[in-house]
């Protein structure tokens, strides 16, 4: 970890904090900028987010607009990515599906993030017996086969999108909790935190100024790596017919439709598949890049 200058509690607090903050993030940004793949991923993701946000206005056709006479047609000037068997424009479908897939990815990751960070930080900060009990629980949950449980949840309680957020989020928080706990435990023993204590800073100030900024790096990195696995899980469930339900659509669902007709109309499989893979690529490269930039110790896995 970069050495962080001990803070003086008196005047110029805000200014100093800003300086330190910007130098830590500035270093990371310089490192990240050199990683061409990561920047490439970042650009692709920003584009995807932009397109998803603007979809209702920029989609070439309406979401439910059918053209039964046309049927499934190959990519053409009117329909860049072709149409499905109901004559619905594939590009439009993929754009709307992307909204759902990205939303699930972001919200479920947020659920995982909140639970994981709170759990890990509490365990790490309090330590002792509380920590032992809390982490033991995480160990037990780790041993549970969650893929199976998600399928079970979706079967038993119906295919509800909110349940999907919750179910996926509930699975993915464990690693986050471990990472945050390790980080917090480590930080508590560092000299600069001890110094801050001896200078008489309140516990809350120490958390805010030393613990949180130093935990942020690994948390951001792991969040970037959680999003693709969440999206993959959603696509997996939707593919099996247990995730997103029609008339809503997601990339996983589009792929599963595409598989049914892939012999006659391969573009119905290939385009949603390419989009999903590209997104996962972008997220993974960005996550790897961020890891190298922000957290040099864990960069070798």
């Amino acid at each position: 970890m970069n050495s962080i200058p001990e803070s003086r509690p008196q005047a110029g607090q805000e200014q100093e904090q800003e300086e330190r903050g910007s130098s830590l993030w500035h270093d990371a940004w310089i490192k990240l900028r050199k990683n061409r793949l990561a920047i490439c991923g970042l650009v692709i993701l920003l584009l995807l987010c932009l397109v998803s946000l603007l979809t209702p206005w920029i989609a070439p056709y309406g979401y439910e607009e059918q053209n039964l006479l046309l049927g499934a047609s190959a990519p053409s000037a009117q329909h860049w990515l072709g149409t499905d068997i109901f004559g619905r424009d594939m590009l439009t479908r993929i754009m709307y599906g992307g909204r759902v897939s990205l939303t699930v990815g972001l919200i479920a990751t947020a659920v995982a993030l909140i639970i994981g960070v709170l759990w890990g930080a509490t365990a790490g900060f309090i330590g002792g017996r509380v920590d032992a009990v809390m982490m033991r629980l995480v160990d037990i949950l780790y041993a549970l086969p969650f893929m199976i449980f998600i399928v079970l949840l979706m079967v038993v309680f119906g295919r509800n999108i909110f349940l999907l957020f919750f179910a996926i989020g509930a699975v993915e928080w464990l690693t986050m909790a471990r990472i945050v706990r390790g980080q917090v435990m480590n930080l508590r023993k560092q000299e600069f935190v001890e110094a801050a204590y001896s200078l008489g800073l309140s516990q809350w100030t120490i958390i805010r100024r030393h613990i949180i900024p130093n935990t942020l790096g690994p948390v951001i990195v792991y969040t970037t790596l959680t999003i693709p696995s969440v999206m993959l899980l959603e696509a997996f469930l939707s593919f099996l017919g247990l995730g997103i339900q029609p008339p809503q659509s997601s990339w996983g669902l589009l792929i599963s439709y595409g598989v049914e007709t892939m012999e006659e109309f391969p573009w119905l499989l290939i385009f949603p598949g390419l989009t999903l893979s590209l997104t996962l690529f972008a997220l993974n490269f960005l996550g790897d890049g961020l890891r190298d930039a922000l957290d040099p110790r864990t960069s070798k896995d």
Partner: protein
Amino acid sequence: MFRFAFMRLLQAIPVILVVISITFLLVHSAPGGPFSADKAVPPEVLKALETQYNLDQPLWQQYISYLGDVLHGDFGPSFKYPGRTVSELIASGLPATAELAVYAMLVALIIGASAGVFAAARPNSMQDYIPMSAAMLGICMPSFLLGPLLVLIFGINLEWVPVSGWGDAPGDKILPAITLGTGYAAYIARLSRGGMLEILSQDYIRTARAKGLSEPLVIAKHALRGGLIPVVAFLGPAFAGLVGGSFVVETIYQIPGLGRFYVQAAFNRDYTMILGTTIFFATLIILFNLISDMLTIWLNPKLRQQGQGDN
């Protein structure tokens, strides 16, 4: 070592109990009984059915008797296949799934480990970048996409291998094994590259090189054992993933294995079948995690002294 194994086995018991309890509660709190999905059944018949399956008893009593049955390996009768028990159904699906998992694991280990070791031998060269980019491609290509694409190319267009089936025609096991194994090959490649890089920077490797050992010998004799530890540690979780992946692969290739049964049971709301399969899978996964942990320790005696504090 034996003490460790014994302790871990003891710890596995509450985990399995938790699994059974959660699944049991989930299934029994599901809205709608197992027979409400069918066409309307007369109340007397419903009553008789409930008595037959013990559904009229209080929940805790059902739980206790189920627990007792499970201890004897009896998961009860299937709701959707009358006259067949869940244990029979599991036994009939297991061979295909196990065979598929073994082949997929072989694909993953052979391709993954050799790609990782190969890449680590010359880091930051083309020899590193090409296999590692391929690995990233493998990670970003989920099995439910890779499978159909492989079928499209090698099954339908080139007609090299059968499109689906299991053991009916020569070569029909190739595509499923590749589909299931690729993602793990990719992870293993990354893990083994990382592990090898770490080991290759150690002093004892420098010593081996200094005494004039050739590079292939250094890798084979000194580096492999340490460098592949992360891979062994990954085998347990990988097995859990293989089980999940087999749902998809068995569905795509119409393989009569456990994964396909599970998905079908999910759609049929065959609760006893779901319950039984979940518990079965969970126990297997816990056991495999245990085995891979023990292998890791066997490979690296240093770990034994380290205690539990892991991060």
